[in-house]
């Protein structure tokens, strides 16, 4: 490559802001109220708006969970009971951890991902903008559900890892504790949609010439993050659904004497360790991006940096048992996981050196974003090294459950968050069109960095303090006091940040398209803030530099070359792009995402009071039951409206789509979703196998005495798979009668499956085999129950399809029938394994 320095970058080019007058498109014509209206924020599906919503909401949860942290530190001013009771302390510690990990760090990163990734890859929006809005609203309402839990007799007090058996209703009986689990489920559903959405977007909608290797590093980090999220959160969802069933219906997985608590640890940490990198990768992407911008040079060893990230993403799924060194798992497996854990530190070493070397080779400009990114690197190095101690089995015997662990993971997680705080400053001018105050930014950093180390470093020195409790050796008091002072300094630093950002919104200098002189990614090639549909024409990197093409494909503006005609071109382009927008009429607003999330919120809130399958007696039970019912109705109606709404989005005609060229957008989305469902069912089946191994494989008899009802159900599902295939053929042949007939037959077969299953269950209940009859019955009911829920969901979609098919739909476009079939066949395939595992073997 012999490009000059500016073009040899992340597919970018130097930016010439004279071209970059905002494209004036009347947003109200696209169904979007102005930004000053509350209505806009309820309706919007635009990725930049949704990004802002994520950023603001995550900062709200940050402040909330931060106040909880200050309460913890106040309590630890001296050992023993202080301002908080023992139970309140446990709740504070648990809620602080859960809220920071789930509702703050990742959502903050995804605020940026929403805002920046489509801009960086050259897309107008995400692949499924309405689904994206829905993900956000599920996130917000899941957080609200968590907050409600504080008022239901107290929130969860079992620690953020929710270890079994502490997580079951016997030990954490508050309704609030159940609500937290349900909130996590809602959150995970939103996350899964988000993963599907980002994966489809990044794999299908990259601008021409934007190959995966050229992907800007922040977008690359997000791509790998969502890949990890897709599989990791499916395992968490399995764990949470099983826990919910234990708490609400009275199944007894995690109470099982043999293997119950270890099962939770396996499921949780199979998710939990990738989660560390899910949280950290976006921060790594920000560091790389900010280092490039403020050293004025390309990342040293960029290719190897990317390769290392890919390696870590894969390896992250092979280290989870290092969280379980003090459980009863056997020594060989501990040794194996010690080795894989040391192994995962190697690619990180490479990344750290790449970042350091970039500093050495470049000319550093000490702006606020750079300081935060640099601080993050320093903190991460400390956090990483102290983590290697914990990866060694023998040392972990000593360190586990102490403040060494607390200090280590705060250096890593909050170290990562440090880069994300830098990202706030880095992209603030882009998002708001205003510059922040550089001096106050540096004051924030100074207070933050000193406060951080004052807070967390003493924890290494006072490492003998036991984790999660407020008792400690009196001799460690000075270190804890130092930490408390650090905590308040850290907290105060954010007052400076909020003041700075709030004031800058109105009085900050207005920001040019690219305020950073050297920036290489495409978000800096458009105005600050960018127009609704992002680009003045179709972005293309075909020549190795960013240029914007008109609809006909002729170059309209090149990001790099400054010509006399440039300004005039830009004007012509504005008209052109406004014209294009009118021709395509992409939708940008939908009322249904927020209503769906509200319905789900109410339904789960109502369900939270369920115990052993029944609501409490009296008025309280009626209120909860009513709320659940009302929420379900709202949810169902809004989902139907969501399906009926005409919402148009266009896919670019020309795009980089490796490795999914030839797979249409929605089809790819369905397949990616099914891949996560494979892990969900896999984790359920795996849990069954694990519990059965723990209980003794051969001593375990199948719960149903007779395989024949199961065999009949196998016949029914196989036949329904065949009929849905015939439906697709009928749609392709444009034969409406056959289409409706075969879809209806599928529906009837599905109903017959459920009736047969229902009869079987009723008979078992009569024999006294209920959900709570022991772990054997639990695994049977819950695993086949999850499958039945999939059948029910399929039938609901099918009912919707039939209603539309009667009206003549799908004859011109049979794809919805095809995609429904993909799901239905998947449910069939799962049964092909459940049948022998639960009825025969």
């Amino acid at each position, binding site marked *: 490559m012999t490009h000059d320095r500016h073009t040899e970058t992340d597919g970018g080019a130097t930016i010439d802001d004279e071209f970059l007058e905002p494209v004036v498109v009347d947003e109200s014509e696209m169904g979007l109220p102005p930004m000053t209206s509350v209505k806009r924020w309820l309706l919007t599906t635009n990725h930049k708006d949704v990004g802002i919503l994520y950023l603001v909401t995550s900062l709200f949860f940050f402040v909330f969970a931060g106040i909880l942290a200050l309460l913890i530190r106040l309590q630890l001013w001296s050992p023993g009971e202080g301002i908080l009771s023992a139970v309140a302390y446990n709740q504070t510690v648990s809620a602080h951890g859960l809220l920071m990990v789930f509702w703050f760090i990742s959502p903050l990163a995804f605020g940026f991902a929403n805002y920046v990734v489509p801009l960086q890859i050259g897309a107008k929006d995400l692949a499924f903008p309405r689904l994206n809005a829905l993900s956000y609203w599920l996130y917000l309402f899941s957080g609200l559900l968590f907050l409600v839990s504080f008022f239901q007799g107290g929130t969860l007090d079992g620690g953020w890892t929710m270890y079994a058996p502490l997580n079951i209703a016997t030990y954490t009986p508050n309704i609030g504790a159940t609500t937290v689990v349900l909130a996590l489920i809602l959150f995970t559903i939103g996350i899964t949609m988000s993963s599907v959405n980002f994966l489809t977007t990044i794999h299908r909608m990259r601008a021409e010439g934007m190959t995966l290797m050229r992907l800007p590093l922040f977008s690359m980090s997000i791509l790998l993050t969502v890949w990890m999220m897709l599989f990791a959160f499916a395992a968490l969802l399995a764990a949470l659904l099983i826990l919910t069933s234990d708490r609400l219906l009275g199944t007894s997985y995690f109470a099982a004497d043999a293997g119950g608590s270890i099962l939770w640890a396996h499921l949780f940490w199979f998710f939990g360790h990738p989660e560390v990198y899910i949280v950290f990768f976006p921060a790594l992407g920000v560091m790389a991006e900010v280092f490039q911008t403020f050293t004025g040079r390309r990342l040293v060893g960029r290719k190897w940096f990317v390769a290392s990230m890919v390696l870590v993403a894969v390896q992250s799924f092979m280290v989870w048992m290092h969280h379980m060194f003090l459980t009863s798992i056997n020594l060989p497996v501990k040794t194996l996981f010690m080795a894989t854990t040391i192994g995962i530190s190697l690619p990180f070493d490479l990344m750290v050196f790449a970042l350091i070397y970039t500093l050495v080779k470049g000319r550093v400009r000490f702006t606020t974003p750079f300081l935060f990114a640099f601080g993050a690197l320093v903190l991460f190095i400390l956090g990483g090294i102290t983590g290697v101690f914990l990866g060694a089995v023998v040392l972990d015997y000593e360190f586990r459950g102490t403040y060494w662990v607390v200090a280590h993971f705060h250096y890593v997680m909050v170290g990562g968050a440090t880069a994300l705080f830098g990202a706030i400053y880095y992209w603030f001018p882009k998002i708001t069109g205003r510059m922040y105050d550089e001096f106050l930014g540096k004051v924030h950093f100074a207070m933050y960095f000193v406060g951080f180390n004052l807070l967390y470093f003493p924890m290494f020195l006072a490492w003998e303090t036991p984790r999660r409790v407020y008792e400690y050796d009196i001799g460690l008091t000075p270190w804890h006091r130092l930490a408390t002072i650090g905590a308040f300094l850290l907290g105060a630093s954010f007052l400076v940040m909020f003041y700075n950002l709030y004031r800058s919104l109105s009085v900050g200098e207005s920001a040019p398209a690219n305020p950073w002189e050297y920036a290489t990614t495409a978000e800096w090639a458009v105005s600050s803030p960018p127009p609704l549909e992002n680009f003045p024409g179709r972005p293309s990197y075909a020549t190795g530099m960013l240029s914007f093409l008109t609809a006909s494909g002729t170059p309209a503006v090149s990001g790099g070359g400054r010509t006399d005609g440039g300004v005039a071109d830009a004007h012509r382009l504005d008209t052109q792009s406004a014209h294009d927008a009118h021709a395509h009429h992409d939708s940008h607003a939908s009322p249904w995402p927020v209503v769906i999330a509200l319905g789900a919120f109410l339904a789960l809130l109502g369900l939270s009071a369920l115990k052993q399958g029944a609501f409490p007696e009296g008025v309280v039970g009626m209120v909860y039951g009513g709320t659940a019912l009302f929420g379900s109705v709202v949810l169902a109606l809004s989902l139907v409206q969501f399906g009926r709404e005409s919402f148009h989005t266009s896919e670019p005609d020309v795009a980089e789509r490796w490795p*999914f060229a030839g797979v249409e957008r929605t089809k790819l989305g369905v397949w990616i979703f099914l891949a996560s469902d494979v892990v969900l069912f896999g984790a359920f089946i795996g849990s069954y196998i694990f519990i059965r191994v723990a209980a003794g494989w051969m001593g375990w008899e199948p719960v149903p005495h007779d395989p024949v009802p199961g065999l009949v159900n196998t016949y029914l599902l196989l*036949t329904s798979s065949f009929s849905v295939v015939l439906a697709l053929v009928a749609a392709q042949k444009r034969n409406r009668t056959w289409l409706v007939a075969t879809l209806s037959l599928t529906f009837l077969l599905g109903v017959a499956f459920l009736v047969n299953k229902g009869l079987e269950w009723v008979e078992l209940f009569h024999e006294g085999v209920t959900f709570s009859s022991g772990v054997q019955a639990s695994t049977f009911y819950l695993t086949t129950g999850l499958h039945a829920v999939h059948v029910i969901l399929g039938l609901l979609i099918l009912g919707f399809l039939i209603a539309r098919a009667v009206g003549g739909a799908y004859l011109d476009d049979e794809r919805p029938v095809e995609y429904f079939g993909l799901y239905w*066949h998947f449910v069939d395939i799962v049964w092909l394994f459940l049948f022998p595992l639960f009825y025969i073997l």
Partner: protein
Amino acid sequence: MTSTKLYAVIYVVLFVMATAQVLVEFAGLSYWLAFGVILALSAVKALLVAGYYQHLLFEPRSISYLLVVGLLAAVGLTLAAAYSIS
């Protein structure tokens, strides 16, 4: 149309194999041999459904890899977890 015929043949094969699974159970084989045969039959059925009904055979290979990755994650979790307590 040949594709309809192909789908019908596959349907019959699936039906027969499901029946065979139950028959294997009563064939008096040793437990682990029967276990292997029955799960192998399930796997073959799953591959037929995925390959033809979900037409994965005719899609870009990357989709199949995607699902294999999910499957590997689930199987890896199951085997490693089960081994850890053995």
